[in-house]
């Protein structure tokens, strides 16, 4: 297509410019507006001191940080706790998930053992059944476990993390497995001749070489956990134990009466770190997505 539309380097009129690249800008601007508009809206609402939904409709009509203060200090809304809980759950789960997944990917990629093929297939098949579908069973199991070990039962962050880690061997492992296979085996063999054991090879050689895919999987798991509502809402009962997704959803369950600008402030504070990290790592994320597509 590009070849067909490339025009001679001479000066062109507006028509020529438009049929070449101009219309592309028109499309891009239109879609960008569609993409950015709700985000502008929520940013404007968060700066608006008026609490209601109607009050937020005049974009950037008044600017102040009252709603941020309100969100952070309102004793009814333990927003800082939600933020902290989300950070703890998503970080711990993200790191542990990547570590466990990398251990498995290393084994499947480098070792040959009975049950290897079956293991790989099982991981993919079990993952077809999304964990949130088993939420009833998870709830009942965790309430039983809570009777014996209150530290990991219902209403605990540690219990929630454990549940999420049940999915540590999964699609992510498969994605990492594909990437591990691209690391030449000669490196391992050279290290082996030098006397390094399997653990030393894994920790000092392989883990460094696969760092990009670890970052991608970690980031995607982190975002996935930040967004996870079903299990978190069933597991976490006390308001100060909840995560952002559970707390903020309850907060605006009736948008008519909700403190809309406080919610918007909370949304902006929750989203900005995620968006910044995502934009910084976007090159790797895109690479990881397409790599997974061709190899998975």
């Amino acid at each position, binding site marked *: 297509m*590009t070849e067909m539309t490339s025009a001679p380097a001479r000066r062109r009129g507006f028509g020529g410019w438009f049929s070449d690249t101009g219309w592309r800008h028109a499309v*891009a601007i239109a879609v960008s507006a569609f993409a950015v508009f709700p985000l502008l809206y929520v940013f404007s609402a968060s700066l608006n001191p008026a609490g209601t*939904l109607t009050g937020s409709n005049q974009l950037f009509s008044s600017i102040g940080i009252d709603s941020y203060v309100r969100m952070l200090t309102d004793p009814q809304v333990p927003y800082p706790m939600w933020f902290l809980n989300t950070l703890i759950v998503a970080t711990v789960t993200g790191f542990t998930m990547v570590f466990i997944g990398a251990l498995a990917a290393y084994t499947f990629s480098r070792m040959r053992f009975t049950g290897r093929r079956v293991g790989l297939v099982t991981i993919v098949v079990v993952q077809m059944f999304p964990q*949130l*579908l088993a939420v009833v069973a998870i*709830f009942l199991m965790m309430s039983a476990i809570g009777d014996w070990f209150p530290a990991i039962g219902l209403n605990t962050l540690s219990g929630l993390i454990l549940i999420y880690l049940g999915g540590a061997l999964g699609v992510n492992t498969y994605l990492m497995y594909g990437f591990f296979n691209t690391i030449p085996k000669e490196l391992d063999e050279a290290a082996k001749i030098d006397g390094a054991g*399997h653990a030393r090879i894994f920790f000092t050689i392989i883990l460094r070489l696969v760092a990009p895919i670890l970052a991608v999987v970690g980031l995607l798991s982190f975002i996935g956990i930040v967004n996870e509502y079903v299990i978190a809402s069933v597991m976490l009962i006390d308001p100060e134990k909840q995560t952002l997704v559970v707390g903020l959803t309850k907060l605006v369950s009736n948008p008519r009466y909700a403190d809309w600008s406080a919610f918007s402030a909370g949304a902006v504070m929750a989203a900005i770190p995620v*968006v910044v990290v995502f934009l910084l790592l976007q090159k790797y994320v895109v690479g990881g997505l397409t790599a997974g597509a061709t190899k998975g």
Partner: protein
Amino acid sequence: MTDTLQASTGESTESPPPTPRQRSAARMADAAAGPLRWLVLKIALLAIVDAVAVYAVFVLFLHSEWLVLAGVVAVTILVNWIYFSRRHIPAKYLTPGIILLVVFQIFTLVYTGYIGFTNYGTGHNGSKDQAIASLMRSSLVRVEDSPTYDVAVVERFGELGLLVTDPTDGEASLGTNTQPLQPIDATMEDGKAVAVDDWTTLAFSDVLARSSDVEQLAVPASDDPNDGAIRTQDGQKGYLYTSTLVYDEAAGTMTDTATGVVYTDDGEGAFTSPEGEQLLPGWQVFVGFDNFVRAVTDASIRGPLLAVTAWTFVFAAISVASTFFLGLLLALVFQHKRMRFKNGYRILLILPYAFPAFLSALIWAGMMNESFGFINQVLLGGASVPWLTDPWLAKASVLIVNLWLGFPYMFLVCMGALQGIPEEVNEAAVVDGANPWQIFRRIKLPLLLVTVTPLLIASFAFNFNNFNLIYMLTGGGPRFTDVSLPVGHTDILISMVYKVAFTGQNRDYGLASAFTILIFIVVAAISIISFRKTKALEELN
């Protein structure tokens, strides 16, 4: 190691240059130091695991949970064996993940299957004994002119008990809500039992502080629930209460002495009167395929189930198609060498993908609010379009918002895939005289699809279970009228399961799990078919 070194150098006072033997010994020492560190770390980690396991065994022993206890012991032995043995290297890497997978995925999957065949839910929470005890406790009335018992409230491990002195023979006995009165040796004071070993006697102020717990205390007089229970209001004096219900264990019936109605065990987990009235709570029983039969025959369940299933497919299919085509269109638009500001646009376009999706859905819900939302108030100048409350518009809104959420991903993927198509293919086609549309339709699209199809399938599967969007945008509403389930026009299967299990007055875990099994069968079938299709596509390459 140092000993050997000293032994070999012992005779000389000055240190001579190391002999080859010494050098090799030093190398061995270095090599050993590494594994030694690992060994210490390994032993420390296993010690922690074993300590936790011992604690777990102790707790489970107290709760008499023999099956779980056996599982914990077996897993602990297995873990120690794997990590202490020099072989089983793959197992060392896989064990943590597999244990978590088995407990939190495979077990819950099997357990879901089991619950689908029971009547578990509100009113059917426990065993038959628990249900009988609960029914009789809920209908306790004080026996007229019954003797007054001296009582003391005692506590152990947070559980309250009642220390009762019999007024006729002065004997002391102890019981709790779950443990009937048992004779016990107690410290007596003025003919009244006041304290007992291992238990803490509550002072009067403590009784006041926990008055609601104390009032809930009803200690069965004996193993036969018909004998009644001792209750106390003030923690000092207790009275005998008996139930208006009489349980006949031989006949398996419950008789209400006030009305004379006889309730019989109907085999469905509840006592039922001849008129069909059930006494609740009932208990949990295995009901076979009842939940599935109910799902396909009961009109008030079948109707919404069919509508929800159809909408789930439509929603997932349109979501994939719309996001893919918008993403592809944009990728093609951007595939132009001389276009300026490309990177700027790109960052703007992927913002919706970077923004946490649940927040986006909540924000759109606010903007689409019928009377106060930005779209109606500002964009449409005060119109009142029922975006989220009209069945058809709500469906359209869900699709629009999902397009917003999903197109950046497809845009990124298509850009990547288009870059992967070699330029020579294009040039060869141009030489052959193909026009841009032909090149796209006949060459680029098929090549693109080979790369993208697995992602489209994954995207379909994701949207099939896209709970957050539905739940946070419309809440599944507007609700269906005249059906027994709390579901609505935009509910998809997964949100229906959640609602049946966790919202509304009646939590029906059994029915929800039955739905889950149906969904699993559908998802598994789609996955198997699509895996085969994908293989066929890959062979084209």
